């Protein structure tokens, strides 16, 4: 069999090169591809962005705390929201100069450390950041953004108790799931706070297996109430009620447990016994109620910001807490 002529082979060769060149115009060769789809199961913002946001928000919160008068009010509204705003505003109304019973919401000595970012593209979004107070105590700060147009603000802040620790959270880039209020796994955050509040009540606490109340704060609250009641003797009676405030925030831990930020309102009600006798309270108490003696009753209201960790199985424990007096009156 004879072969095609040389000119024919040359023409076929050129045609093949041309065809290859044309096919080379395909998307892969020219570097054009389909746009990738968005991943919605990770943190919605980068770790760097979260760090910048935390620094900005906590810096503003510090400014608000240091400011006086109307300027302080404006700054508070810019930097704080939710629980943190309620606590700071209430504290400012009672006695701005007296910080003996109010723990500073934020006292930074170094850059905040971002511990977690809420997972997913939905709102609200939260950032959990840790700061260090000048005395070395660690503070857990919860920053919240309710919607796309509203920047993050500090919504809750509490100082960690000595020896307390938080179980591992998911990586910052992966994000940590926010837990719905009505979740039952391992416990409903609202139910947990209700159980904890009941366990702290005085004189009739409600026993609970949901929360361990042997931590320093819970122990001190119960001991102080008992000591105060004892000091009143037969002159007065003390009742202490802790009321959970709505909308706790819960973040899922890596092991399946929860980190719950909640707010309790504690009411200390002192009622003098009938018989015409008066009670001379301590100097601190006199300063708060602006009276030297009590003849009828007195009521103190205090916000208790609490952070609890809930393991997948077993009792929750209080890891961080702050309390701020926001109302004091007596007659």
């Amino acid at each position, binding site marked *: *069999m*004879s*072969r*095609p*002529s040389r*000119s*024919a082979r*040359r*023409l*076929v060769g*050129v*045609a093949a*090169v*041309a065809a290859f*060149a*044309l096919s*080379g*115009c395909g998307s892969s*060769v*020219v*570097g*054009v*591809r*389909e*746009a*990738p*789809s*968005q991943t*919605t199961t990770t943190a*919605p*913002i*980068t770790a760097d*962005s979260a760090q910048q*946001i935390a620094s900005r928000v906590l810096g503003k919160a510090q400014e608000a705390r240091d400011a006086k008068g109307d300027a302080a009010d404006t700054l508070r509204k810019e930097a704080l929201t939710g629980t943190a705003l309620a606590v700071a505003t209430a504290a400012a109304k009672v006695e701005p100069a007296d910080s003996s019973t109010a723990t500073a919401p934020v006292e930074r000595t170094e850059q905040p450390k971002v511990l977690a970012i809420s997972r997913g*593209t939905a*709102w609200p979004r939260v950032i959990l950041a840790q700061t260090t107070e000048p005395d070395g105590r660690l503070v857990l700060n919860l920053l919240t*953004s309710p*919607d*796309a*147009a*509203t*920047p*993050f603000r500090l919504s809750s802040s509490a100082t960690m108790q000595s020896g307390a620790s938080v179980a591992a959270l998911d990586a910052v880039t992966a994000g940590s799931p926010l837990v719905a209020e009505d979740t039952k796994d391992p416990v409903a955050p609202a139910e947990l706070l209700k159980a904890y509040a009941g366990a702290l009540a005085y004189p009739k606490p409600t026993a609970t297996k949901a929360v361990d109340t042997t931590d320093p704060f819970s122990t001190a609250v119960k001991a102080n109430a008992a000591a105060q009641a004892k000091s009143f003797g037969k002159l007065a009676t003390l009742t202490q009620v802790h009321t959970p405030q709505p909308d706790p925030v819960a973040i899922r831990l890596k092991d399946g447990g929860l980190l719950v930020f909640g707010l309790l309102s504690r009411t200390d009600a002192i009622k003098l016994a009938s018989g015409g006798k008066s009670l001379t309270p301590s100097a601190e108490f006199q300063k708060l109620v602006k009276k030297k003696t009590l003849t009828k009753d007195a009521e103190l209201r205090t916000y208790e910001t609490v952070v609890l960790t809930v393991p997948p199985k077993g009792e929750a424990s209080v890891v961080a807490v702050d309390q701020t007096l926001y109302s004091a009156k007596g007659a």
Partner: protein
Amino acid sequence: MSDLAKRASVLSRRILPPVLTVLGLALLIVGSWFTINLGSSGSATFETTPNTRGVVVLTPEVLNRVNDDVTVTGRAKGDGQVWVGRTTPSDADAVVGKATRVTVDGAHVRDWSLTTKASGTGDAPATLAAADVWRQAVSGKGQARLTVSQANAPESLVVAAPGGSVERVTLTVERKTWFWQALLIALIGLIATVVGIVGLTGMARRWRAAEKKNTDTEPDPTPTEVSA
């Protein structure tokens, strides 16, 4: 030579030259056009003039279709302030909301334009820049430019002119390979055209020779005089 080989040879000699010529010319024109438009840097610049008081949203369909950096420049009418922010597509949609927007979701190479569609009502949110959704943001007087790398794809860009109008948005992709690819296509087109023309010339020569041969061998139609 078998019949099949003969036919293939004849076919290739008769069909390929005109096909190569046409194809070569097409490649030469297209390659030359791209070479001239892309320049030696291989820069493709697409443009749109939305003239909107709302925002312009550039989607991943124009920002993340290539492996190279994409530079977007927003220009405001007059010397107005321009702001450009980069974020995820879902956050861009959420932060713009139902405000008036011009969405850029494609590009035409034919006229180097960006394809757009308008939607929404009302002004751009006043708090746009303050939102905590931006991975990067730049602003400038008259114009602002932001480069999108592909490391965090997919992403969207939002261009706004607070208090003014976004007059023009340009998108530039630089890929040096494109210049060389366009040049190669033009070169292949040139070669194919030349080869095709040479083939056509050969064909014409063969036809002429065949015609001449036919003419020479045909009997003279003039009747010869026959004498008795």
